[in-house]
């Protein structure tokens, strides 16, 4: 097995302080459209440390993927605009960095895995060539050395007969194998932060289990910070250390994983947990959160969740609840968080 560590350029200019890798502070992302301005991310703050797995949980439209894209710097701008906020990597603000410098962070420092591996890989180049590109572009290796590295990586992510298949094209691989190739590319330059955006949503359960096991193994081996973006409460329970729940572009709850499942502190989280059928339960009564998340152009005043909340009272319709500490280390954006947590 090839070790990847040796390719790390000695004395990287980015050194985490106290294990703190990434700080997102009061981030806003807007989409300017003919119908008006939609605020997809509305004042989101969180941190990621070395070796930590943070899950960002939310339904479609909650802004979880936009958050990931903002961190990677791959938002389509326009229509997206980042009016304010900071994304600091090892203390340096990625948003104010010159593009050339930021480009050099993508791959060696922060990298990302996408949901749909088939459309994320280039169909006209062999997979080995695409993995090796990381070494050619960022490390200046020649073609044959880079290809050797690519084979080593393909072996590391358990692609059988890597040496023979290095010249194969993406369509010649199954969905699970393609996702392994994506992972190989993402870890190629030994990044400190790995963002996985719905990495297993398009895969079957048996393959999902393989891929999640591989991701966890790699994370432990390399002490990476992992941001897992997903809507699947089952996957999160298996992998995450900490969870951030998003709703209409805001964080509504953050907590350590056991705490969140045992005693959710926001009615939305509680409702989500009640609405999923569980494999290990029989005769379960499913309860649904009524209605839908609001249109981002017409977010209701007060708490954005109030039209769907069975607990909503007058104050919820007028005052936006801030994300506040309910018990040590637990944050919730609900006026009645204490009541929810004790329910």
């Amino acid at each position, binding site marked *: 097995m090839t070790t990847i560590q040796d390719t790390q350029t000695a004395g990287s200019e980015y050194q985490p302080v106290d294990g703190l890798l990434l700080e997102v502070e009061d981030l806003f992302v807007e*989409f*300017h*459209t*003919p*119908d*008006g301005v*939609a605020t997809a991310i509305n004042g989101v703050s969180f941190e990621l440390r070395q070796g930590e797995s943070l899950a960002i949980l939310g*339904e*479609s*439209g909650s802004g*979880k993927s*936009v958050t990931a*894209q903002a961190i990677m710097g791959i938002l*389509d701008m326009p*229509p997206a*605009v980042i009016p304010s906020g900071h994304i600091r990597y090892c203390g340096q603000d990625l948003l104010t960095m010159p593009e050339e410098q930021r480009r050099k962070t993508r791959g060696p420092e922060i990298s990302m895995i996408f949901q*749909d591996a088939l459309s994320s890989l280039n169909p006209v180049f062999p997979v080995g060539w695409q993995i090796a590109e990381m070494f050619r572009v960022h490390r200046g290796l020649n073609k044959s050395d880079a290809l050797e590295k690519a084979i080593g990586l393909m072996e590391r992510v358990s692609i059988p007969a890597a040496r023979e298949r290095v010249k194969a094209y993406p369509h010649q691989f199954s969905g699970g194998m393609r996702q392994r190739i994506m992972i190989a590319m993402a870890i190629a330059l030994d990044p400190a932060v790995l963002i996985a*955006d719905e990495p297993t*949503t398009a895969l*079957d*359960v*048996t393959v*999902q*289990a*393989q891929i999640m*096991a591989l991701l966890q193994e790699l994370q432990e081996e390399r002490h990476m910070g992992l941001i897992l973006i997903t809507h699947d*409460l*089952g996957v999160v*329970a*298996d992998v*995450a250390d900490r969870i951030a729940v998003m709703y209409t572009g805001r964080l509504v709850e953050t907590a350590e*994983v056991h705490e969140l499942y045992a005693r959710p502190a926001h009615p939305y989280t*509680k*409702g*989500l947990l*009640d*609405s*999923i*059928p*569980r*494999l*290990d*339960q*029989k*005769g*379960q*009564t*499913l*309860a*649904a*959160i*009524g209605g*839908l998340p609001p*249109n*981002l152009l*017409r977010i209701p005043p007060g708490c954005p969740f109030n*039209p769907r909340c*069975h*607990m909503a009272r007058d104050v919820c319709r007028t005052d936006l609840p801030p994300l506040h500490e309910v018990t040590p280390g637990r944050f919730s954006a609900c006026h009645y968080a204490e009541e929810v947590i004790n*329910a």
Partner: protein
Amino acid sequence: MPEVILSAQDLVKHYPIKKGILRRTVGHVKAVDGVSFDLHQGETLGIVGESGCGKSTLGRLLMRLEEPTSGKVIFGGDDWSGASGRDLRRMRRDIQIVFQDPYTSLNPRMTVGDIVGEPFEIHSDVVPKGGRRKRVQELLDLVGLNPEHINRYPHQFSGGQRQRIGIARGIALNPKVLVCDEPVSALDVSVQAQVVNLMEKLQNELGLAYVFIAHDLSVVRHISDRVGVMYLGRMAELGEEDEVYTRPTHPYTQALLSAVPVPDPTLRGKREQIVLVGDVPSPANPPSGCRFHTRCWKAQDRCKTEEPQLEQRPDGVGAHLSACHFAEPRVIVETVDVSGVVPDERFASTDVRDTVVSDDAPADLQRMIDRSEASSGDQAYAPQDVTRLIDEQHGDHRPPTV
């Protein structure tokens, strides 16, 4: 046990693979390769399996949307595999289908009233012409939608609401059987529960039997009375929900169950994980003998040559159908009986009505943002260029504001 209403007997569907300029048939994709089961009145039969196992083709065969290569579908005592024309149409009245993707299975140019009322055009004797609009409104009400929205178009509804429209169309002719092909897999979790609850309510009220095809084993367990597990076009295991989930005897079922994540972090590392090696083989060239032997940890020489039959095999308590030479019960999921536990109504409700206060403007913007999240949970949203959407607004020449 109630009487058998639909029966599949040794259903086979092979698709030819054609190659070359002469389009010669060089092989067959064996999508469904000998599947038999009975569906009883008013019950739900869940069909689970991974992609490519033939579960959707099976659903289409039951509906006669595909001609079976061989085998029979017997409905209410009549073999309808040979039926055509008027006979086929009469039979279709009793068996209807709900499709997976609520975004493509509704015609965008038709109003909801036309979509739900279309079955009455073909089966004109079900509801007389004058009463159709009223009947459509009743159906909308039944599936929890606002009957006043009868003149709206599909794009004005959300995914969950569209799936309700699909269900209303499915039940319009009072069928006895509804084939549901992945009806909730394109929906967000919080919306999934609404649709599942609605389907259960309709079953109780209308006495429908469901064939519920899905890849999500948790949803299938929740809704099904009996469950069939498919692998590469064959039924690997078939039994009562309890039998399949608490004492599975087929290694594939066991592996599948162990791979499903359970939303409970306290079980982390405590659950038995059977990790299968490799991928599902191609259905064009399925392995000899037992189709699962290439990935099975129990496989012996016998499995490579002799195909195991789906037959009653002991499961520790009784016996149920399993197709493994070495069938042996194994507890994979520790089941907790929670019947009688009522969820806290302060947070979520079991009400099946669609409670959304929908605003008049279509939620196109929401869709646009979802699309720009190229990888949001919904597979139904193909990533789309946002600027193109803006260009499509005729008469609006403002450049996108930056």
